[in-house]
């Protein structure tokens, strides 16, 4: 008898719990980043930044007096996990907007969900395919993104090369989503800038040495090398480049090189290397007249104070995404369709870490190639390249 009573009681409790989980008392924003795993160099600073921004917003009184609740899940860079996490955020946590995931691959795995559940998604990954529906030839209705695309980075690099009168180049890339996406754009845009790609070399993300690829390139004597990778390989490749005595061939890194840590790890080999970077990487180099001067300086100061580690440019993508989401929530409340419309029509001139954003019905990327500045490594630090 007693047992049955306990069973009934528990069941009733459980059911009523369901009713007690009441409609949102706070504005809920979901986030999915690759916080751990191989691509944690993206997700880790993104999570830290998003948490910091949410705290700052709440400390300043929240959004229209309501609290901002940020729910972060770790995708570990895994497409399946990202997909599950976004569904959970939308159907169970009932968030109004999702920011992330960190990678193009994980973003593509959740893009269909944004449309299916009619929830705005602000991705923090590079590929233009995330927001652009090639078959329909339109921007995906529910998907926006904050990072510059590889196209812009390639544009910036090719423009710089063209200015110097260089047209024969060799490209190198890592065989991961990041490298492959950059490589694709390098090849696609080459004719437009009159570039001849003499060598197209690849290496694995955990390779120990790239001497072979560089030796092959050396034999072809191109006028510049463009390398697209992240993680330790982009440092090792620089050392091999120096050791092989190839410093007379200018070396261009992708925007993935944007951390001072890489200059340090290269142990001097990074001197003279070029790369396109967003304002957030070079906050110290901006003049006070720069549009992004204030936001970049503040972010740099806050992040260093809170986490006591060097700022990574990737965190800036989360900064941009969460601030835009908060701005939309503040203006139109937690109605998902209204948030989407707001992002599309009212983000005009939003000053973020990685550029000044202008979204429109045809453009859910919001940036142009001005978002990148060409930077060169000089005396172990960034300097603006002229």
């Amino acid at each position, binding site marked *: 008898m007693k047992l049955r009573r306990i069973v009934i009681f528990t069941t009733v409790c459980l059911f009523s719990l369901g009713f007690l989980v009441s409609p949102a008392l706070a504005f809920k924003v979901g986030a999915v980043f690759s916080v*751990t795993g191989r691509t944690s160099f993206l997700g880790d600073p993104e999570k830290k930044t998003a948490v910091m921004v949410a705290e700052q917003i709440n400390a300043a009184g929240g959004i229209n007096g309501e609290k901002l609740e940020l729910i972060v899940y770790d995708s570990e860079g895994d497409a399946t996990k990202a997909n599950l996490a976004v569904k959970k955020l939308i159907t169970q946590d009932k968030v109004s907007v999702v920011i992330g995931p960190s990678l193009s691959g994980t973003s593509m795995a959740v893009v269909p969900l944004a449309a299916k559940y009619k929830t705005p998604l602000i991705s923090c990954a590079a590929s233009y395919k995330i927001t652009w529906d090639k078959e329909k030839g339109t921007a995906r209705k529910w998907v926006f993104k904050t990072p510059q695309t590889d196209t812009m980075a390639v544009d910036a690099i090719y423009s710089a090369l063209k200015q110097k009168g260089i047209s024969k180049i060799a490209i190198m890339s890592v065989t991961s989503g990041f490298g492959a996406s950059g490589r694709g754009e390098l090849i696609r845009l080459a004719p437009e800038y009159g570039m001849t790609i003499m060598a197209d070399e690849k290496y694995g993300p955990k*390779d120990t040495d790239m001497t*072979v690829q560089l030796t092959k390139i050396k*034999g072809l*004597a191109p006028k510049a090398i463009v390398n697209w990778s992240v993680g330790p390989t982009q440092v090792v490749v620089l050392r091999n480049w120096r*050791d092989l005595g190839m410093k007379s*061939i200018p070396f261009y890194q992708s925007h993935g090189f944007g951390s001072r840590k890489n200059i340090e790890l290269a142990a001097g080999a990074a001197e003279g290397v070029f790369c396109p970077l967003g304002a957030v990487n070079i906050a110290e180099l901006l003049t006070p007249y720069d549009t992004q001067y204030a936001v970049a300086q503040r972010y740099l100061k806050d992040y260093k104070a809170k986490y006591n580690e060097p700022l990574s440019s990737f965190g800036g993508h989360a900064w941009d995404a969460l601030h835009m989401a908060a701005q939309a929530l503040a203006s139109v409340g937690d109605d998902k369709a209204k948030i989407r419309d707001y992002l599309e029509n009212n983000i005009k001139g939003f000053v973020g870490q990685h550029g000044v954003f202008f979204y429109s019905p045809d453009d859910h990327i919001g940036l142009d190639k001005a978002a990148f500045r060409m930077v060169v490594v000089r005396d172990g630090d960034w300097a603006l390249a002229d």
Partner: protein
Amino acid sequence: METITPAGQLFQYLITGITVGSIYAMVAVGFNIIYNVTEIINFAQGEFVMLGGLVMVSLHVGMGLPLIAAFPATMIIVTLVGMLLDRLAISPIRRPTVLSLIIATIAASILLKGTAMFIWGKDPYDLPAFSGRNPITFLGAVIQPQYFWVIGFLIITVIVLTLFFEKTILGKAMSACADNPDAASLVGINVKQMILLSFALSAAIGAVAGIVVTPISLMEYDRGAMLAVKGFGAAVLGGLGSFPGAVIGGLILGAIESLGAGLISSGYKDAFALIVLMFVLFYKPSGIFGDIEVSKIKRF
């Protein structure tokens, strides 16, 4: 910049392949020591290499110990980890089967990786090269001084191990355990201690590999798995249990990767090495120097 001749290029591919192959060979030797005594394939072998690199970074760069002191200290620390691995993960298994032992070593490698991430974080670390970074030009190829250290340590390791297993009582006792553990314990050999010793030895060798390769390739917490796969490939190609086999297997894998990347396609370089490996196995199911009888004993 001086131009490079095709012959120079080829030589460069070979040199690089041999260096990379030497690392695979050292991992393969580590596999073989444990395999010879226990017939276990220790998939945490790559983690020893990773730990070797990272502990060395902490001692040499972090704490400022001189190279000559940090090197043996690192070896000792990683050796202790290897012994702990045997005591905590391998010897407690009640009814060891090949699969359960594989999973146990995989679990151990996950644990080591997780702990390393906790201690060192996710960033890669650098180690200064032992004798500077000024490359030497030889026959048109450019050689980093660190390459000589890698190849040199491989040679020393193999000579010392061969002497140990063939000339010393302890070494002979260890080999006896592999041939027939029951008979070995009958003649008074403590099999459990020999297994412990094999883990210690192979961890020490893994540490050496990690220390010498870090100045070339940097080191971070999750590099172990890929090194373990390559080392396992080298060990199998050469024939499990054979030290000369491990060396030849490692060098062949390294050379194929390097020449394949240089002459055919860098995207498919790992595939070339593995295709060759598969065909060697189809032709000679026990690897180049492997014992066919031994290869038939184990089943899952």
